[in-house]
């Protein structure tokens, strides 16, 4: 076949920023119809979490920091960015592939599969950013933002969004049954949410948990965010940021390739 011989040059031509931006713009057009409805839960979710975990549970917790609310909030912020990106590249993309077949029509235009994948990833990152900004505003209202440096949490949310967008799109490109998402959410995202040091340090957990956590994505996202809000463990946070960036680029490249395999029959 002609494809593999000139592989990289061909790939570069397949993915242009303009094409990806056009796919991203489709999602923005749709979001403009629904954002007034969609944006409301984005504010309520952090309010509920901060009230129940931070204020409610926090009243019984001592030992991690001066205030449990201040300690738990950055972790919840990271989880929020994760969730914002995840929904777009799981159910939403699956429906577009299988039920709406939106991409079939889009691929009859000059757009390429790579641009569709990149556009969807970029949109998921955008949603992570929207979740992040909403969360940050709520944190400020709770009095948890003490310096302008916390604004760095927004780019952090975008970076975390990119990582989870890549992971989610990889799963979607391989997933043939919509029901399997319950495995993705229950067996993958839920344990990440519970064991990534959002709610408690892993110090007193068995060694295995700590070792495993180091190799999972949300753990690093939490470490990064906790540093940005509280200034804890700067060197570890830097390591986490680099790991997230590298992992995000690798997994997004994998997702783009797998989506081509899925869509071109």
């Amino acid at each position, binding site marked *: 076949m002609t494809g593999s011989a000139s592989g990289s040059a061909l790939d570069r031509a397949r993915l242009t920023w303009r094409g990806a931006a056009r796919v991203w713009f489709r999602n923005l057009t749709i979001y403009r119809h629904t954002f007034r409805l969609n944006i409301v839960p984005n504010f309520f979710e952090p309010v509920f979490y901060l009230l129940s975990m931070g204020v409610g549970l926090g009243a019984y917790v001592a030992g991690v920091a001066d205030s449990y609310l201040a300690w738990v909030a950055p972790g919840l912020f990271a989880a929020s960015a994760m969730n914002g990106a995840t929904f777009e590249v799981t159910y939403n993309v699956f429906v577009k592939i299988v039920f709406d077949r939106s991409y*079939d029509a889009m691929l009859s*235009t000059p757009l390429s599969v790579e641009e569709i994948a990149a556009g969807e990833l970029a949109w998921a990152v955008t949603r992570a950013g929207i979740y992040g900004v909403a969360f940050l505003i709520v944190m400020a209202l709770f009095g948890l933002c003490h310096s302008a440096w916390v604004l760095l949490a927004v780019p952090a949310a975008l970076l975390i969004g990119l990582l989870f967008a890549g992971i989610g799109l990889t799963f979607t490109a391989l997933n043939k049954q919509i029901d399997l998402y319950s495995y993705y959410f229950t067996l993958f995202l839920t344990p990440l949410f519970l064991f990534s040091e959002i709610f408690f340090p892993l110090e007193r957990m068995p060694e295995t948990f700590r070792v495993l956590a180091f190799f999972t994505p949300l753990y690093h996202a939490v470490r990064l965010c906790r540093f940005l809000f509280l200034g804890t463990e700067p060197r570890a946070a830097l390591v986490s940021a680099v790991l997230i960036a590298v992992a995000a680029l690798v997994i997004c490249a994998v997702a783009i390739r797998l989506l081509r395999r899925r869509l071109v029959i």
Partner: protein
Amino acid sequence: MAGIDFTVSAGECFGFLGPNGAGKTSTMRMIYCASPRSAGELRVLGHDPDREPRAIKQELGVVMQDDLLDEALNVEENLLLFGIYHGLSRQAARARAGESLTYFGLADRARSRPRELSGGMRRRVEIARALLAEPKILILDEPTTGLDPQFRHDLWQRFLDLRERGITILITTHYMDEAERLCDRLVIMDRGHIVATGTPAGLIAETVPAGAVEVRAQAAERARIAEQLASTFGQPEEYSDRLVFYTEDGDRILSALRTGGYAIRSELVRRTTLEDVFLRKTGRELAP
């Protein structure tokens, strides 16, 4: 697909006529760069679909067999986005969308969701969308399947109008009247092969006489008629419920039928069509 060979010239309406499963849609998918071809040469506007899909797709407008309007977008946005996918500026795309909606009589439905429209209107939106970036080639895969006759005739008129404006049209259909009405040239496809190529009139003229007589009767009676009249009028073709004699001298058959005293349900003298060409070339009926 096995060894299909055709050339389409700029500005013509070229048809692919054949039953479902003949390979028409597969051929279209290769042309609009959705499916790789297993072997062989294909050039669209001088480009190889494997190497330069973008250059090809930039000049194509595709209306697929399945209704694939974007339900998340309204009618105008459906058009607008297709313009943007083709690289038009937002302003240019909006202007084109407005013109196009007016041309297709959809101006008052710009804000409707596709699902709020009738089947015929949705089809028009799809065609308007395919034409938005002013393609050189319009690909229509079974464009009127499932539409009522009034809508079909309306669309045919528009296709002929588009061809007048110089757009090359590739159309697949299993309706022989559609092929005859629209196509300058066509191929007849069956089971992944091309069984005939030519103009509608030319194909009919070279395959069957200009006239045919259809005779409907019960199976036993059909067999008797076929046996007794074959020597004079030639072996008739057997459709599922009727015989067809190919002859320009219909009156002689009619009088022979009358004098023979056969139990006939009905008879019909007609012009031959592409349907007869398909039957002759494949031994099977085109329409189910």
